[in-house]
């Protein structure tokens, strides 16, 4: 009879434990789902355009660190010229260098230093950091020579000078809310970024892992006079060329005529 008693007692204990677990789970705060909003999400490039200021806002769980990635939606190939010493004397452009499968724009912001937040594997999977972009890309030189890793550093230098690549750590401001944190970030959008589709992605990091993410699109497109002139240059290039010449000639002769006094004997 003793074994029967023990079995019954253990069964009761298991039932009580399960009930307690369910009660605890029901009474606990639900994990805050991360949200992301970008304002403005549509950037029109008109005559007076000189970049823009974007505001990224959202909510996240209280204890999570955050990474905000602003990058080209589609990665593409970038064609550049590389410089070297011609005949061992003069520095000049020697040939073409192609960087395959890289973003045109890549700007990263975080609540803490990236290396403390994620290990290399997690950074690679989520395309976080320049190392992750490098691991995902290929380099090819027109002369067929092997391209060393130092040429990716040159690519980063080139992109950073153009203000198209950046990593800014510990820049996202957070405030505790009733059900977690609210965050906000101001992004100085560079005028050098070409018209295309971009994505803002917010990643929540907990215990070295990305646990949640949200994203929002940004569209950058030409508008107004810039769009009209660009359209004319590419679709009616003869008319565009003639217009450019006529206006230049008229302006030159008109100012020449105004300066009559200065030019005469």
């Amino acid at each position, binding site marked *: 009879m003793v074994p029967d008693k023990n079995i019954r007692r253990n069964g009761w204990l298991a039932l009580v434990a399960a009930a307690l677990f369910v009660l605890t789970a029901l009474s606990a705060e639900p994990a805050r789902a991360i949200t992301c909003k970008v304002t403005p999400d549509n950037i029109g*490039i*008109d*005559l*007076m*355009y*000189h*970049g823009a200021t974007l505001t990224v806002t959202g909510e996240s769980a209280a204890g999570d660190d955050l990474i905000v990635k602003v990058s080209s939606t589609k990665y593409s190939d970038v*064609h*550049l*010229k*590389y*410089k*070297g010493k011609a*005949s061992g*004397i*003069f*520095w*000049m*452009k020697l040939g*073409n260098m192609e960087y395959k499968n890289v973003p045109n724009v890549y700007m990263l912001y975080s609540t803490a230093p990236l290396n403390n937040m994620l290990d290399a594997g997690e950074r690679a999977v989520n395309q976080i950091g320049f190392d992750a972009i490098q691991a995902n890309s290929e380099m090819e030189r027109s002369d067929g020579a092997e391209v060393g890793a130092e*040429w990716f550093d*040159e*690519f980063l*230098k*080139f992109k950073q*000078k153009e203000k198209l690549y950046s990593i800014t750590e510990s820049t996202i401001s957070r405030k505790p809310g009733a059900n977690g944190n609210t965050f906000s970030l101001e992004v100085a959008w560079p*005028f*050098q970024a*070409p*018209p295309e589709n971009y994505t803002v992605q917010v990643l929540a990091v907990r215990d070295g892992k990305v646990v949640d993410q949200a994203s929002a699109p940004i569209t950058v497109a030409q508008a107004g*006079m*810039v769009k009209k*002139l*660009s359209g004319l*240059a*590419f679709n009616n*290039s*003869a008319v*565009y*060329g*003639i*217009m*450019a*010449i006529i*206006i*230049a*000639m008229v*302006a*030159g*002769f*008109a*100012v*020449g*005529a105004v*300066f*009559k006094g*200065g*030019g*005469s*004997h």
Partner: protein
Amino acid sequence: MFMYLPIALTSVNYLVVTGLGLFVGLLSGLFGVGGGFLMTPLLMMIGIPPTIAAATDANQIVAASASGTLAHWRLGNVDVKMGLYLLVGGFLGGAGGVQLIKILRATGGADFLIKITYVVMLGLVGSFMFIESLNALRKSKANAGKESAAPAKKSGGLLSKLPMQTEFVKSGVTHSALVPLALGTFVGVLAAIMGVGGGFLMVPVMIYMLRMPMHVVVGTSLFQIMFTCTEVTFLQSYSNHTVDFLLALMLLVGSVFGAQIGTILGRKLKGDQLKILLSVLVLAVTVKIVLELVMEPSLLLAYAGGH
């Protein structure tokens, strides 16, 4: 203050761009050069891609040279006949030069040759003009007023035996029509190889080989450049879509005024003084290019196009 350029795809401070136009236009009116060898690198410094900088510069030179030509026309400094012969030669040479570049590029190593040609030509032209005009200035102090009374200059030696001898009244010289045609072709070939308008080569050719007076050289050179750059603007717009009209507009607002101021300043200077100033400018550009060639650049990657 900022304006976005639809072809260059970048934003620029329009006061800076108009200032650049004013500066280069002033040199254009003063010396009769298009200023491409100065303007293109300056535009690249403010972030304009090289191919767009070169093509757009041609567009603004149309305005600056039109303005300068009109000013010099009033002063009687444009030898239309000579300008047309040089122009025909220049067009022929330009077309030939473009073909030559294609052959050179196919054989490889063309860029190195182009760069060397550019440096050597600039250096030679600058040094020769500097020494010659310095000597002339010294002599003119000793024999003031002699040159103005001189009769029309003729080509000497073999050149005078060539057929089609023609008098160029405005320039006060007599040459075979073949001489300006051939010289125009020579400059056209070099200009096409180097990817420049050729004003800095054409001016010394007119001074030293055609023996034209400096002020007529400036006016005639501008007259010729106006047509060359018109052709280049159209071809670049039509074939390569590299002319940024808004950028050209900002530049020309400055350059047309600069060209007028340059012409007025030029009247106050003697021919040899103008030559010395131009030679110093050409030599300064040569030194800059040589330094760029021998010093390691801060960035080892660049956009395609340009030198």
